[in-house]
């Protein structure tokens, strides 16, 4: 974690953080959200699986672009890409959003899909979205609603790899923000500066999820959960998978697969600093295929 004593960073126009580049889903949500792209589905369309894919902290809808590209023009299922609240916008908007704002965007699309008549919903969360979805389950969000048929989590974060994160409330005001080490390709899709307020929100939600798991909670009755977790991950500690395994109390509804990878959110390969190997591509494809298999079997 790189830090600075300046309160606000100097933001280049090339960065997502600036006032020129935004997540494209803000300009044309109908191309990203199924509820807006096809708000009046036929009975057949409404019964197709809809993957509601949600990105991680400081990322944007781009994180799931490769799944969309891989899916091509399939008519077997839909992919609805959610932009988390406070994300994909300016640095100031990112700074002022809480984790509940991040989460609300998931709820908005979930409820809009139900309202439109879609009934075969599958929640997919990477990294922090994994924590946001777990929080929603633990706090009873799905009680009384049509529940997701499957919940698929890729590198969910419950235990941070950076073990100093719990101190962000104390150290944050001193450092102001941290700077990510993004590649040239990543700078328009990921925030390059992370205000300490956002890191404090991240710590707040993962701490809540950890405590909820510690007490234990069950999945919605008809839901199945699968967790795909990299064995070496510099952002979401692999022990996160252990806590989920121990904390979800319903039997036979959770499957964990440990993925032999050193990438955080190993399903996104584009614009990585590390060279991408054939094995990385294979793991990505296997996971996409597995997600489809689970959705089609339920």
């Amino acid at each position, binding site marked *: 974690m790189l830090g600075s004593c300046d309160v606000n960073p100097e933001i280049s126009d090339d960065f997502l953080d600036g006032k020129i580049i935004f997540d494209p889903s803000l300009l044309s949500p109908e191309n990203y959200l199924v509820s807006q792209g096809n708000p009046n589905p036929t009975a057949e369309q409404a019964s197709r699986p809809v993957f509601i894919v949600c990105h991680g902290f400081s990322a944007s809808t781009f994180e799931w672009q490769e799944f969309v590209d891989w899916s091509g023009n399939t008519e077997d299922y839909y992919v609805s890409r959610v932009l988390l609240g406070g994300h994909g916008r300016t640095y100031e908007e990112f700074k002022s959003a809480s984790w509940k704002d991040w989460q609300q965007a998931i709820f908005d699309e979930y409820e809009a899909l139900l309202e439109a008549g879609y009934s075969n919903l599958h929640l997919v969360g990477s990294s922090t979205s994994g924590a946001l979805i777990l929080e929603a389950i633990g706090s009873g969000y799905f009680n009384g609603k049509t529940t997701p048929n499957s919940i698929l989590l890729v590198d969910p974060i419950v235990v941070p790899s950076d*073990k100093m994160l719990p101190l962000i409330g104390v150290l944050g005001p001193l450092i102001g923000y941290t700077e990510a080490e993004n590649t040239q390709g990543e700078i328009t899709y990921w925030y390059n500066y992370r205000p300490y307020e956002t890191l404090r929100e991240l710590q707040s939600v993962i701490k809540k999820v950890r405590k909820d798991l510690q007490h234990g909670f069950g999945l919605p009755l008809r839901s199945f959960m699968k967790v795909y977790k990299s064995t070496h991950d*510099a952002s*979401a500690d692999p022990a996160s998978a252990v806590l989920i395994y*121990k904390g979800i109390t319903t039997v036979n509804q959770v499957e*964990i697969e440990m993925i032999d990878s050193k990438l955080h959110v190993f399903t996104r390969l584009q614009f990585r600093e590390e060279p991408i190997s054939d094995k990385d591509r294979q793991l990505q494809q296997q996971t996409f295929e597995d997600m489809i298999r689970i959705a089609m079997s339920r």
Partner: protein
Amino acid sequence: MLRSQKWIILGTVLVFMNLPSVSLAQQSHIDIGLRSQKSLGLYLENGFVSQISFDRLADNRLFLGIGFVSSRLGSALGSNAIKQDNYQIWLSYYFKNRRKIRPFVSLNSGYFAADYEAEIFDVLDRSSMLLSASSGLEWTTPVQLKVNMALGYNIISGNGLNGPGTLYPLFAQLNFFYPLK
């Protein structure tokens, strides 16, 4: 636990148990007590501790201690927290010997092991050598009970790439020592 690590711990315990007889010419002091340890950002772990010092060794300022603390007696008690054990040894040096409140510094080592309870997690690091430094204050109460608080830093901790993920760097300790001898 590796075989060599088991021998190191066993050897340390045996040496500790034999210290009073080895140093017959010296007056030794043995404390026993309880330790409560909180990783900053994670679990509360509780357990048992003991330490020994000698009049003629650094004027009773140097203590050699052993302890066992576990989340089984803390956060994991009746919850889904990960069960993890710390086998600890340490060397502490106390300043201002005749004061009721004495500052001290410690160099700590030992062995850490977490129980992930499922084969699927066998690919993850679950154990580690412990190496930490800590410092704090000890208050000797009128009834001889010593209350001791410290802050410490684990030099070896998990970082997502290596090491157990629930071994955190910063910790606080509250110890209660009572003199046996």
